[in-house]
């Protein structure tokens, strides 16, 4: 009975946090028995949970409460993503359309992609000092290569048979762009947006640690400086919850809305639990003839 229940997908999911909790408690016991003073650095799950509850109810020692903090970070993320989408869209479009533009940018894109977040964060805080600019640029630089690569792929996969159809019927150019080009790019733009969000979010936090005066990253650093390990872990967990919330509620809803036309199965494929693949193929009925 119990065994069977353990095999279900829900219990499978529940087992994981329980095992984590067990390992956590065991580790504390183990380390504390070897080196008693470590108890200060190793917070118990109850400490962390208590901290998180205090934060959620707005009872904090940090200068801003958790909502203000995430709002500040979210605005930076939004601004950075917008810039990344626009710049990446333009560059990706040009790279998809022209071989020479592609050759010009290709190595740069790969280089930016290979650069660790930390390098951007350090560079941005040195270059722009403390404030919004550094974190925003860090988001742009983390997200932009994904947008470029996805948009380029989208343009390369352009449904030429549908353009031909539009041409044969004498459909005006603007209408073809609106109803053929843009919808065909949507799956690629959407995938790009998702990666830019997930990775940009991480880039942002690192940048805020070094170059921010507020925001989620800065607040994690605040707890670090205050030697509150439970604060660091608790804040990181809040951060994860926040990102998951966005992923589930914003992107899933949006995806369902934008890709209403797709057969059911492929909507689920959009879920962000795979390693960052570069593209998501748009679903079209195969065309020939």
């Amino acid at each position, binding site marked *: 009975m119990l065994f069977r229940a353990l095999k279900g997908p829900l219990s499978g999911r529940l087992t994981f946090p329980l095992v984590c909790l067990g390992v956590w408690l065991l580790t504390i016991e183990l380390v504390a028995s070897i080196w008693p003073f470590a108890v200060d650095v190793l917070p118990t799950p109850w400490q962390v949970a208590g901290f998180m509850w205090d934060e959620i109810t707005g009872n904090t020692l940090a200068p801003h409460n958790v909502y203000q903090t995430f709002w500040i970070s979210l605005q930076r993320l939004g601004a950075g993503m917008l810039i990344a989408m626009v710049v990446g869209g333009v560059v990706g479009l040009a790279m998809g359309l022209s071989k020479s533009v592609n050759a010009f940018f290709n190595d740069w894109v790969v280089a930016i992609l290979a650069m660790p977040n930390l390098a951007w964060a350090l560079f941005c805080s040195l270059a722009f000092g403390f404030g919004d600019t550094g974190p925003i640029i860090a988001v742009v630089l983390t997200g932009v290569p994904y947008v470029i690569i996805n948009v380029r792929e989208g343009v390369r996969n352009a449904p030429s048979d549908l353009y031909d159809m539009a041409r044969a019927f*004498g459909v005006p150019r603007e209408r073809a762009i609106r109803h053929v080009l843009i*919808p*065909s790019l949507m799956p690629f733009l959407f995938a790009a947006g998702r990666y830019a969000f997930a990775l940009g979010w991480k880039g942002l936090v690192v940048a805020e640690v070094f170059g921010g005066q507020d925001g989620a990253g800065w607040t994690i650093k605040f707890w670090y400086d205050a030697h509150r390990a439970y604060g660091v872990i608790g804040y990181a967990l809040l951060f994860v919850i926040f990102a998951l919330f966005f992923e589930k509620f914003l992107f899933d809803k949006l995806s369902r809305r934008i890709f209403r*036309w797709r*057969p059911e199965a492929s909507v689920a494929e959009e879920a962000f639990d795979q390693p960052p693949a570069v593209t998501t193929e748009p679903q079209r*009925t195969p065309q020939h003839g």
Partner: protein
Amino acid sequence: MADIKIVNLHKEFGAGADKVVALDDVNLELGGHVFVSVVGASGCGKSTLLNILSGIETPTNGQVTITQEGGPARAGYVFQSARLLPWRTVMDNLLFVQEDRSEPTRQRCQRYLDMVQLGDKGKKFPGELSGGMQQRVGIARAFSTEPDVLFMDEPFSHLDAITARSLRAELHHMWQETGKTVVFVTHDVSEAVELSNRILVFAKGGRLAEDIPMDLPFPRESADPDVALAKAEVFRTFERIGALTVR
């Protein structure tokens, strides 16, 4: 009524060892109230001919002109595959190729959806329809612009016999009523003989091998001995030039 003039039309794809001649020096005049069927083996350039006529492909050599009294000729095209916008509903796919989105236009689109028996599927997305239904939406789309010239590339080959039969009747009716020019690609000799007043037989290598007039009166029942005779005649021509592929 549109006039189509094709002069020294030559089309090749690729270069060097990969060169394929799709159409080889085709000369043709299609004037007046014509329903022309284009038949021939797979790969002999039938779709290419339609693509050039509709402006999708450009010829390697030669010219194609389509003239229409009082303004440019408007074309409709039923492709070999449906070619619908997967992200637009069936109705929006029809509206996509219209000049406007006015109420009369919508009603006209609805009428042609009814004609292909998909009147209740306007709000569906193409992915929710079967292949044959999608093909019928493609047919409704081409009809719904009420074009001067209608290009059709094996439009009925994916459909069941009964639906195909009723759509053939619709097509014939429309052609007789409106005086359109129809260029109709098919593999089906019976279909060609029953619908057209001219049959063009293409041979391998994109050569126009035979231009057969079909002057029998309509309607042409397959039981009619004259129609059966005409079919046999076309089959013999096919065999003579080796255009027939066994399907």
